[in-house]
């Protein structure tokens, strides 16, 4: 069977076109996050951003990876400055300096993603499920707080898959900052710890 140039070109064009439908996306989240506007409480805190968190790459689907380690570290670093007057960012718990009252270790439990082809909605969505281990300087666990965050694109019109996932992830990370500022001191165990801390010590 012999093919002419036209047929070969058409077949090649069709192959390229169809390969463009493959849904592989490697996204490196790049965004500048603003500082938070809040009055911090006078507490010295250590924020443990370990290597796993700083270099975290989510794989919500087999063909999608999202590098969000740097972006989430940046946002959380800024968000905690709105909660505590002194925040020391360290790489491991061994580096906690004396005088620190709280040690907070964030981690990512799971990242989920939904695309227009999954949900039949005209948006890309990203869910990031964080966990915050909140401990005292002595290592007593105050709480292991589950903190979900959600982000979506306004629509998917004219957006490439990578750009849309990046946009939804940035919104989700910003949402994590909002959730943290809004709810951190409402966590019953943290609220209890804070009230106990404010009470003057009674000496016999």
């Amino acid at each position, binding site marked *: 069977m012999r093919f002419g140039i*036209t*047929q070969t070109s*058409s077949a090649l064009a069709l192959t390229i076109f169809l390969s463009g439908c493959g849904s592989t996306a490697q996204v490196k989240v790049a965004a500048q*996050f*603003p*500082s*938070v*506007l*809040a*009055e911090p409480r006078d507490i010295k805190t250590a924020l443990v951003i370990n290597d796993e968190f700083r270099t975290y790459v989510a794989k919500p689907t087999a063909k999608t990876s999202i590098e969000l380690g740097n972006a989430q570290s940046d946002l959380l670093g800024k*968000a905690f400055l709105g909660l505590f007057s002194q925040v020391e960012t360290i790489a491991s718990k061994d580096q906690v300096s004396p005088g620190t009252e709280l040690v907070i270790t964030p981690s990512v439990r799971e990242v989920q993603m939904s695309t227009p082809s999954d949900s039949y*909605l005209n948006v890309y969505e990203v869910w990031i499920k964080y966990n915050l281990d909140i401990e005292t300087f002595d290592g007593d666990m105050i709480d292991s707080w589950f903190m979900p965050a959600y982000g*979506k694109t*306004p*629509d998917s019109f004219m957006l490439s898959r990578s750009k849309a996932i990046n946009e939804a992830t940035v*919104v989700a990370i*910003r*949402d994590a*900052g*909002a*959730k943290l*500022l*809004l709810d951190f001191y409402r966590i019953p165990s943290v609220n209890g710890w804070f009230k106990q801390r404010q009470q003057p010590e009674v000496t016999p």
Partner: protein
Amino acid sequence: MNWYRWAGIATTALLCGCSATTTIDELRPTLTPTEIAPGERIVILGRRDAGHYETDRDFVDCVGNKLKGLGIGILPEQEFIDAIYPWFEPRTAPKSLGRLTRLLEDPFVKEKVDTKDLHYLVWLDGRTETEGSGGSMSCAISPAGGGCFGFAQWDKVSVYEAIVWDLTDLTEKGRIRVDSSGTSYLIGVVAPIPLLSPVKNDACKGLGKQLRSYFATEDD
């Protein structure tokens, strides 16, 4: 009558069919004119807290552009949201004046709003949707060439509401609702010819014009 006259009439009739119908409703609680001092600014924000839609930034920018030339400063939406982060994120943005009042009781937030010289905040809420569609079009491509044949039409509806909040006395100064609808066509005669109804653009123009009348000073 020559054939080109008929063609001209047919084209005109077809293009007229692509126009949008726009209705504007306005509600002002008082007849007090909207006051804005030199140097004061307004910010226009899109509502993004609904689960299934959000007011798109293009529309917010479009309405902002319609207010240019009034001598009023307009603070860009993202600049305001970043400056006051995280209190105007979809999760935290105040949905009522009561919530805004409580938010502005925070001295940090109040100071930031004051430094931005903001007098009014305009919320935009709404979306543009495709409601009904009909017709069919088929396109084919082959080594010898290709083309589209057929006819398709769809209806678009834009519904937007603007709510004006005064940040100095924390009152609502007015609401403007705009409804715009129109039908777009796609005619396939070898090449597809789109005849689009500018529904969203008309909604933006209508809302922008009405907001201009809100903020226009006597000099304008």
